């Protein structure tokens, strides 16, 4: 394949993904022609209801759930909020929640505002991570108490790709009679998930992270789990989530789940090999660079690399000249003037945190793209280091 400068090299798939062409094709008729309301009595609307049912089956299949355990929402954030607030309302006498220091803002900021949202004071335990971004299960076990209403732990970290031992953690929570929620937004479609084998009560996923459109998410609620809706209104989603369904996007998500199941092998072999080639190539070619996150306990598509003594936004804008798209955990890109809370929790030194770049691949990436990035990155870093007052040479 020949590369052109105007072709986008998209390595920011943990931010969002392209809609798969097959997915777009599947959803289009429901925007253009079949615009009926699935709740309507007439056939015109009712047939849309059948299409929704199929999408529900497709989502359930990908994660080993039953269709009735799937509730469609607007996004991963809504699913997270729904699960956690439902648990706290189910057990209003329990005032403790266990989570981690590296959660996505969807959970992190919710936990910081629980008192205001529920009207009660809550105790929040945020589990530490080590330098590799891994949890200590001993600390987790000690954190679980009779007062704990819910545990919320992400399946895989969006910044580093580090995977948490969700199966074991869910089991430990279950043994104590504690509800378990996992934000699996980054994991679904990248690693196999079979909820039938797990003790997980709630799981969040998001359409636009697996080649479906933005604006659709799912909350899995294990059958038999007490549930309090977040959005009350009409009887949609069996009363679990009021509001007319985002029909076309839900149907798209169904198709995307089928595709994800088909591509799971490719993701874990070819994409992983591309990721490894990129990572090893960069670490070898650029002095004072380091990987952030555990080497093996990690999503196959994510690589987070710190280039010391240079700043992430400046790196990204140089990459942008070559149409290479990625992300950074630096302060200037976070909008908060402080570097990523994930890297800080891992104890990544400031010299490295500000210069972190996250590459996140998908099955659409090619080897030629990896080679192109490997050819361009060392020069970019070198030119910025020549300008840095902290760079004293190799």
């Amino acid at each position, binding site marked *: 394949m020949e590369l052109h400068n105007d072709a986008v090299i998209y390595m920011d798939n943990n931010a969002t993904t392209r809609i798969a062409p097959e997915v777009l094709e599947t959803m289009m008729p429901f925007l253009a022609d079949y615009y009926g309301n699935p709740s309507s009595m007439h056939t015109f609307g009712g047939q849309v209801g059948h299409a929704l049912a199929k999408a529900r089956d497709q989502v359930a299949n990908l994660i080993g759930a039953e269709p009735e355990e799937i509730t469609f929402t607007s996004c991963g954030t809504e699913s997270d909020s729904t699960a956690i607030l439902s648990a706290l309302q189910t057990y209003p006498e329990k005032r403790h929640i266990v989570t981690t220091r590296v959660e996505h803002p969807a959970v992190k900021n919710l936990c910081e505002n629980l008192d205001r949202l529920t009207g009660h004071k809550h105790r929040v335990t945020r589990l530490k991570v080590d330098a590799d971004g891994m949890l200590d299960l001993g600390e987790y076990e000690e954190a679980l108490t009779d007062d704990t209403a819910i545990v919320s732990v992400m399946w895989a970290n969006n910044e580093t790709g580090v995977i948490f031992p969700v199966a074991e953690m869910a089991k430990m929570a279950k043994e104590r009679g504690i509800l378990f929620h996992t934000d699996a937004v980054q994991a679904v479609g990248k690693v196999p998930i079979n909820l039938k084998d797990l003790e997980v009560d709630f799981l969040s996923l998001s359409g636009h992270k697996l080649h479906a459109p933005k604006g659709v998410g799912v909350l899995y609620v294990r059958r038999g789990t007490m549930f309090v809706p977040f959005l009350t209104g009409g009887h949609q989603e069996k009363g679990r989530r009021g509001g007319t369904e985002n029909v076309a996007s839900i149907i798209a998500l169904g198709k995307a789940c089928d595709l994800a199941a088909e591509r799971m092998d490719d993701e874990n072999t070819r994409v992983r090999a591309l990721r490894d080639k990129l990572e090893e190539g960069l670490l070898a070619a650029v002095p004072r660079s380091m990987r952030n996150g555990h080497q093996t306990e990690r999503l196959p598509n994510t690589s987070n690399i710190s280039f010391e003594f240079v700043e992430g936004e400046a790196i990204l804008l*140089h990459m942008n000249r070559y149409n290479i798209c990625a992300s950074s955990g630096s302060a200037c890109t976070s909008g908060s003037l*402080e570097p990523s809370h994930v890297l800080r929790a891992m104890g990544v030194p400031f010299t490295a945190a500000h210069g972190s770049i996250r590459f996140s691949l998908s099955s659409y990436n090619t080897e030629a793209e990896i080679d192109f990035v490997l050819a361009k990155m060392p020069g970019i870093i070198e030119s910025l280091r*020549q300008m840095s007052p*902290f760079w004293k040479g190799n």
Partner: protein
Amino acid sequence: MWEYTDLVKEHFLNPRNVGEVEQADGTGDVGSLACGDALKLTIKVDDKGIITDAKFKTFGCASAIASSSALTEMVKGMSLDEASKITNEDIADYLGGLPKEKMHCSVMGREALEAAIADYRGLTLPMAEGEIVCECFGVTDLEIIRAINESNLRSVEEITNFTKAGGGCGKCEDKLREILQRTVEGKLEWIKPMEKPKKMTTLQKIKKIEDVLEREIRPGLRKDGGDIELIDVDGDFVSVSLRGACKSCAKSQTTIKEYVEKKLRELVLDTLIVEEN
């Protein structure tokens, strides 16, 4: 995505005057690696007090690099007196403007220039002598008051955009609002000590927590051969580290929650959550 002018992009991609002037007559070092941006400005001054050369080394984002590049272009050929009149607005204007969230990059340029001139003249700058208001970025009240007056700031958000103060944990926002109000009303004397704000700032929390640790908690722990160190305060999250015998003690979690947290909630703030680092 930040919206940069073509001039900012151009100066970022092709920065002028990168490096260090040999045998510099004045050096201005501002910012730090921890803060995410830093600038080292070196200048050469002739016997008539004219800046004959200026170079920079910058660690930071596109607008920090572009501001540094612009600054060096602006000051070359200027007398020291002319140069000392350059404001951050002048630097931003030279570049056709900066996004408001990035104005602090131009402020960094102005500060480096002042520092370099003061270094040449053998003076120390008064700005650093104020009282630290923003713990996260080490911004003093004097720096904030000056930014408010010079750039006509009218909101806490603007103060953050220009000085970074309040851009970290955000816990000094109330104090910033108060400084803003007083400065705008012209009631605050520059060196007059601050009145006690209503809500506790992070700095106050840290001081109070340290005080309680020292008076109430450490003596007990030391009796058992242990100790405790305050690592960080992030909102209501208080991060501590147990030392000595406490570190390996099986009851360390209980010590933290039942003893340390209880005491701190009782004596400092009842919403504090103590975590072991």
